[in-house]
């Protein structure tokens, strides 16, 4: 097993150096938006917080950590502080995993296009689409988180942001419910794009296809941000029959993602439990969060398909 304290140290070190939990090229965050030519200033701002864009890198790192976790080094890792750093984990220039980077680009482009269809004129902050710092908060690295949050807030304000339209549950939660407690004078309104689409009544209406999809509620949307009915309504508008797993809505079950970097093995066990429960209802599993997407996809076998809701709503899939 890995020594979680070491993993935390590696993340802290990377955040100070790169502004990300692990080294990724900055352009990887905003290159998806270049062809769209969105305005780079505006009061309504599409803010991704980089989480979707990080997932291909996370998947690659987790694969490497899994190998360390299961190896003989792992016993050592628990005993010897700093062994992960000495193995070079902190300096890994990780490559995005397989086709995931292109999937992520399609997801983000779909979100932008859905907002356009809902007649939301959103700007995009490009270089200032910074990582929200969510992992720092989750790991209790409060001082570093606060420092980082102030930077993010100032950057977004400097581009005229008043309403942030977020794209994932972690960033939605951190920007809406956590930043106000850490950033003095914080005055940004924050809405998930799913809330915006539901409010604006985006024109998705299609004939019922009779296709069954099962919805996997992400924990933060369901239990902390009350984004529960909107995705269901949107999926139904798009013609799908939405199935509920045994544990859904407020009592949804985690995908295991938040501990994938600390103990990939247990994260996978949790994901498997959840995947089994979801597939009982449909072979098409709709996720609303990039972390859930990566974790459930990693354990999906055979004819089970895990798809991000943005792709489903935009008609790209299934």
């Amino acid at each position: 097993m890995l020594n979680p304290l070491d993993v935390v140290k590696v993340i802290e070190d990377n955040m100070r150096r790169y502004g990300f939990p692990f080294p990724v090229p900055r352009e990887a965050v905003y290159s998806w938006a270049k062809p769209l030519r969105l305005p780079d200033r505006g009061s309504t701002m599409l803010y991704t917080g980089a989480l979707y864009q990080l997932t291909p890198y996370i998947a690659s790192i987790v694969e490497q950590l899994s190998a360390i976790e299961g190896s003989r080094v792992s016993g050592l890792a628990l005993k010897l502080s700093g062994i992960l750093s000495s193995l070079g984990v902190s300096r890994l220039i990780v490559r995005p995993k397989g086709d995931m980077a292109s999937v992520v680009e399609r997801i983000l482009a779909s979100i932008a296009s859905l907002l356009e269809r809902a007649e939301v004129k959103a700007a995009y902050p490009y270089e200032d689409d910074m990582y929200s710092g969510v992992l720092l908060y989750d790991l209790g690295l409060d001082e570093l988180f606060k420092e980082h949050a102030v930077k993010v807030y100032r950057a977004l304000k400097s581009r005229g942001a008043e309403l942030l339209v977020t794209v994932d549950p972690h960033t939605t939660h951190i920007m809406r419910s956590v930043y106000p407690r850490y950033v003095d004078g914080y005055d940004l309104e924050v809405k998930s794009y799913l809330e915006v689409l539901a409010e604006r009544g985006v024109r998705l209406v299609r004939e019922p296809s009779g296709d069954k999809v099962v919805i996997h509620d992400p924990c933060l949307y369901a239990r902390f941000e009350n984004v529960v009915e909107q995705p269901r309504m949107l999926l139904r508008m798009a013609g799908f029959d939405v199935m509920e797993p045994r544990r859904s809505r407020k009592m949804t079950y985690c995908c295991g993602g938040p501990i994938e970097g600390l103990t990939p093995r247990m994260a996978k066990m949790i994901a498997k439990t959840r995947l089994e429960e979801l597939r009982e209802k449909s072979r098409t599993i709709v996720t609303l969060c990039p972390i859930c997407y990566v974790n459930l996809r990693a354990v999906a076998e055979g004819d089970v398909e895990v798809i991000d809701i943005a792709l489903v709503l935009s008609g790209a899939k299934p």
Partner: protein
Amino acid sequence: MTFNALQAYQEIWEALLDEEFQEALRRASTISQVRVEELLAERGELVELCREVAGIKRRSIDILEELVERAYRSLEAVRAKPYLAGDAEEARRIIGGLVGSGKLVVIAKSMAAAEVGLRGYLESLGNEVWETDLGELLVQLEGSKPMHTTTPAVHMTRYKAIKLISEKLGVKLEGDSVEEAVKAVREFLRGKIARADVGISGANALAADTGAVVLVENESNIRLVTSTPPIHIALVPVDKIVPTLLDAVKVAMVQAAYTGLYPPTYISIIAGPSSTADIERVRVYGAQGPRELHVVLLDNGRLKALKDPILKEQHRCIRCGRCQYECPVWVHTANKWGGPAYGGPMGLVWTAITVDPVEAGKLSYLCLGCGRCDASCPVEIPLSTILRHLKSIASRSS
């Protein structure tokens, strides 16, 4: 007591590789989740009662120090002997002094006893000590620690349990009949309880207005242990004190409901030692039950935790263990994800309060922050927020 988070991580890793352990937990957690879910759906009044108990516990925390004093006076008024133990060592010393050595001691289920390491201590004084809750007895025979608050042997399959009973109690058990195993343990423990010098219990709640100890159970071992031996010692963490007897009974009822066993088979109210005044109105203590009742109020970091506005929320906990069964991490680790006694979401916080916040914080990194514990807690403790707070304590310390 001390513990080391890295050692616990090593044990967690071993548990992840142990298929029998995983299978036992998977089965128990699924059954428990479904049972409680169905029970609450059937009985709306229990959900109402939870809200009421959450309010009772909230108000109790605000006046906890005063409640401790009130309880102390009420215990004296009913001829129970109260003590206040500042820490685990003092609790052991007080109880060790009352028990002495060369005695036969039976313990009803008590997580507080595990918290202070009571069984081992009493044995070290030269006493014969037996756990009487079946799950606790199995844990004693295995030489491990309770793996869940209300179901301590949750990690064992029937085969493991039967093997332990056969080998360690010298009882011949053939086949895999749980009924036969229970019968064998009943006979064995009955013999011990009947001859015991001292019975030790915990408490689900203690009423400050009357000094009444309230205990809820299904096995009836608590009834026997608290009423058969001539001396009863109750070890009661101070956070279990509530203002009135009615409050205390409500706490016990919610605790039972959230373990999925409702109605509880037994609720005991014990206010003082047994007595009779049937002959010429002369009050004599020690009728059919104990002649002495000693109540040790256990602080062990709880009053200090009141000063931490986040940590003090934990004092609402009624030890139902719901958060453990609902936690996606705990269902793979049981209380191996925890300190010497407690584990899982609520258990890490109790470990922080009673043992070491930094080491508990290091273990808290495994918390997903998913909030299922928050959503399932009958008294609305923001467990995921407290666990994040512990992570931050651990991060600051390094």
